[in-house]
């Protein structure tokens, strides 16, 4: 038979996460690709209907493992919108700091992570060790490394600990110092260029067809389509930052945009530390007496934030009871992870498949839920 069926995942070193792509390969060209999600399916949308509004806080970060804070943020934003609660000023700034630290962490992992499929393991080792320092910051702030459950409806769970700002500054300084080294090692390496430059294209037409957002969209269209700019949440309208864009979206460009976004995140965090109110409450209570079993007024709302992979949104329906009536999750990598693979992984080589998955930003848990 002319075609060989090969599997990229679920248990394959080239696949990050529990996800599978069935590839029909002729020689080394992928003739047909079929995504097979569902290995991480836990039925979140059903489980959330069965938990209290408060109890869901433990559940939601687990939808996206690598970048959990955005879940907490959209969830909190949705409930606050439905309940009409105003969040204290200081909480907004703390949320921004957490979100941007999270963005730094995942971008650091992505930049180091490109070492996996291209074979540059030193980059991976360095990059992930660097990310660990950010996780240490999270641990100091929230008490947990990965799932923080820190951003809660009405604010943040608790105030920042003493002296954390100095620690953050220290980590950021070190990161800023090391970033050019990583750039030299990874983004300017001639062999990496040979592999990812002019390869794994994302043309502008495809962006609209699939509904790809985030870096994918910005690198292809050249527009500053960043939810932080277009419809600012928290206090993103009060900080200055640029949205890096490009009009030629190959894998290298997307990596470079990630690299530039890291600089912007550092810039945002520095501004946050400068501009945030030094004192004040960080959390508003919902209804007195039943902090755990609070209710949310009837209604439905869609909230979205800018994750590292694009628009990440929750559609929340409340029937006024203690539990949500329905929550639907828009995973940011849903378009490229399913239809994108089916239509646009074909024509690439098996050498490129895992780089494709990497740089397109396919995150399996948020697809499967």
């Amino acid at each position, binding site marked *: 038979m002319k075609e060989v069926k090969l599997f990229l995942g679920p248990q394959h070193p080239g696949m990050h996460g529990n996800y599978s792509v069935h590839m029909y390969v002729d020689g080394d060209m992928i003739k047909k690709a079929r995504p097979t999600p*569902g290995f991480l399916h836990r039925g979140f949308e059903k489980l959330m209907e069965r938990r209290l509004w408060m109890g869901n806080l433990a559940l939601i970060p687990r939808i996206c493992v690598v970048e959990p804070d955005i879940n907490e943020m959209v969830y909190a934003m949705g409930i606050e919108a439905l309940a009409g609660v105003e969040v204290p000023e200081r909480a907004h700034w703390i949320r921004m700091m957490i979100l941007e630290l999270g963005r730094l962490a995942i971008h650091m992992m992505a930049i180091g992570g490109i070492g996996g499929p291209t074979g540059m393991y030193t980059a991976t080792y360095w990059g992930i060790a660097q990310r660990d320092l950010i996780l240490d910051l999270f641990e100091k702030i929230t008490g947990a490394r990965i799932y923080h459950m820190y951003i809660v409806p009405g604010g943040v769970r608790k105030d920042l600990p003493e002296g954390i700002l100095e620690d953050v500054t220290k980590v950021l300084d070190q990161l800023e110092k090391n970033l050019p080294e990583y750039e030299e090692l990874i983004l300017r390496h001639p062999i990496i260029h040979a592999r990812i430059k002019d390869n794994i294209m994302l043309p502008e037409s495809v962006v609209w067809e699939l509904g790809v957002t985030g870096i994918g969209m910005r690198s292809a269209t050249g527009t500053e389509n960043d939810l932080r700019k277009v*419809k600012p949440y928290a206090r993103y309208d009060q900080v200055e930052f640029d949205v890096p864009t490009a009009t030629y979206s190959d894998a290298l460009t997307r990596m470079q945009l990630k690299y530039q976004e890291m600089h912007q995140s550092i810039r945002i965090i520095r501004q946050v530390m400068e501009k945030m109110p030094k004192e004040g409450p960080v959390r508003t209570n919902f209804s007195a007496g039943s902090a755990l079993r609070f209710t949310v007024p009837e209604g439905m709302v*869609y909230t979205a934030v800018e994750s590292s992979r694009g628009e990440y949104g929750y559609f929340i329906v409340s029937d006024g009871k203690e539990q949500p009536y329905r929550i639907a999750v828009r995973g940011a990598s849903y378009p490229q992870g399913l239809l994108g693979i089916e239509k646009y992984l074909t024509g690439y080589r098996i050498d490129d498949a895992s780089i494709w998955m990497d740089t397109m930003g396919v995150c399996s848990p948020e697809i499967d839920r």
Partner: protein
Amino acid sequence: MTNSMSNWIETLEKDLGVEVLDSPAKLQYFIDVEHTNVHQTLAYLRHVGFTQMSLLSCIDWIEQGKFQLICILMNWENGVHMLVRTMLDRENPEFTTITDIYPGAVYYEREIHEFFGVHFRGNPTYQKPLFLERWDDMPPLRKDFDPQAYSDSKFPRREHPHVFKTKVVEVTE
């Protein structure tokens, strides 16, 4: 809400002939349409700048005997999210695919069929299983499906023997 925005909304209302409802969040509106009118509404909205379909989802209003489909569109020029809602009959949920307007919807439709049992005419692949494998019960996101019961019947739980060691305190005089 700026003046230009309200003008824009008015134009929409006039062209579509439906009411654009406000929502709790800013820059977000609802449109309720009959399920026969959904396609022309979507086509129009895509034409006026709602090029991105963020989410296609479904709600099971079991008490009313209805499914509600929600199509969330986004306009990147002004950052407006438009939620187009329509009701379907719960007994015989059938809808025509919107993949010719938003090609990205193909997998959302498959997912909704899998989780709710809504049929999509015109989508050749919607009946294939996507997330679940060898599923043998009703679509799981319907309100009358009880995951706890399913889990108990299929996946045995660990039995925690609640044995507490009691410390015998000898009272000595």
